[in-house]
């Protein structure tokens, strides 16, 4: 595996998703043709399938289930999509049930938060912004306001989970 490709997984793990977004942009058309030929899927369904498959791929990389980039990434992604269709289940190679259900529950509650709270928590926990930068992005007057806002949102999420 070449060094840039090996680096890709590291980049994905620290939140740089450009690789997958580019992959989607490059492959959407060909994937839809393949899915139409193999499974008689209409283009919008094929596009949704590719999005779900790439989300599965991202989850596998993010939680360490995938530690090596497959030699033939295209074949790997197509295989994952086929497994998804064959199994007719939302998640491919799932985590242990308790782990998966805890995460899914958190994802559901996260989506219940207001748009601002989702943004604040994404900036802090996913993008890794410090409070000053987050305040600037969100239009808060200073870093203290950003810290208090993040704290409030985290508590809201925790209360929803309880």
């Amino acid at each position, binding site marked *: 595996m070449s060094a840039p490709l090996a680096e890709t997984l590291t980049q994905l793990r620290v939140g740089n998703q450009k690789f997958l977004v580019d992959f989607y942009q490059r492959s959407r058309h060909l994937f839809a043709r393949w899915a139409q030929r193999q499974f008689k899927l209409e283009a919008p369904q094929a596009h949704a399938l590719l999005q779900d498959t790439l989300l599965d791929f991202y989850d596998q990389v993010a939680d360490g289930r995938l530690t090596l980039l497959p030699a033939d990434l295209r074949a790997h992604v197509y295989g994952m999509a086929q497994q998804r269709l064959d199994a007719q289940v939302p998640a491919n190679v799932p985590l242990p049930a308790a782990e998966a259900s805890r995460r899914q529950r*958190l994802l559901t509650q996260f989506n219940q938060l207001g748009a601002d709270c989702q943004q604040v928590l994404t900036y802090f926990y*996913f993008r890794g912004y410090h409070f000053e930068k987050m305040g600037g992005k969100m239009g808060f007057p200073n870093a203290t306001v950003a810290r208090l806002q993040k704290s409030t949102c985290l508590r809201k999420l925790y209360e929803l989970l309880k």
Partner: protein
Amino acid sequence: MSSSTPSPDLRPYFDDLERFADGQMAPAEQEAFELRLEQDEAMADGYAAYEQLTADLRWAAGHNTLRLRLQALDERMNQRGDALARTEQLVKRRRRWATWGTVGGLLLVLATAVAFYLVRPGRARPARNWEAYYQPDPGPAVTTGLLHSRPLLGEALDQYQAGHYPAALHSLGRVSAASVGADTLLYLRGLILLRQGQGDAAQLYLRRVGDEDSTSELARRARYHLGMAHWQAKEPIEALAELRAVAADAQNPYQASARKAVAAGVLVPKD
């Protein structure tokens, strides 16, 4: 912490755990907290649960971000695909038209000339209608190259030139100012609104063309159409002022048309 055991209630420790995890404690306070973590089992369990919560949150935020990015990209690609498909249709239609267009065009010119001859205003009383003096701007030619490089702009111009003004406005609304230029977009929007008979609305856009550089070619053109927009909106004093300025501007491509309108005297108040 095992995911199968019930998660401890973090609320009593939330403040401390959050400040510790976010690096907001003073060094002495942090040391004391670390010591407490070693000695207080309930606190240590709480800390593990808090770490799991934030790790799950990091995952959820990343997952959500990727989902939204892919959806947005999908939508953009759909829009671009639709615009390209329409462009293909336009190009095919144009080729068909080119075959029959020459004969049709000649007939149209002839019919227009006859119609103009029959309904032309009498020489004794000059026409008072703005359209009798208006010299329209067809905009840039819609070439195949333009349709491929900027499909949305090409589509908007094509619709404008075909007289489909509402559709042209809709297409123009999706053109990015970054790729075309803010003044060009304002100018085209004003032009289309004017042709659609919305002189009031057209003024708002045409007036803003040349905010940055009032001596540009586009600003000069806009001034003429602004005058006509005032005329259309039945504001003869403002229309006359703008058209006089255009008539006095030797570099304005509409100088002759503006002079004709001013010289006709139909905009001068009667009293």
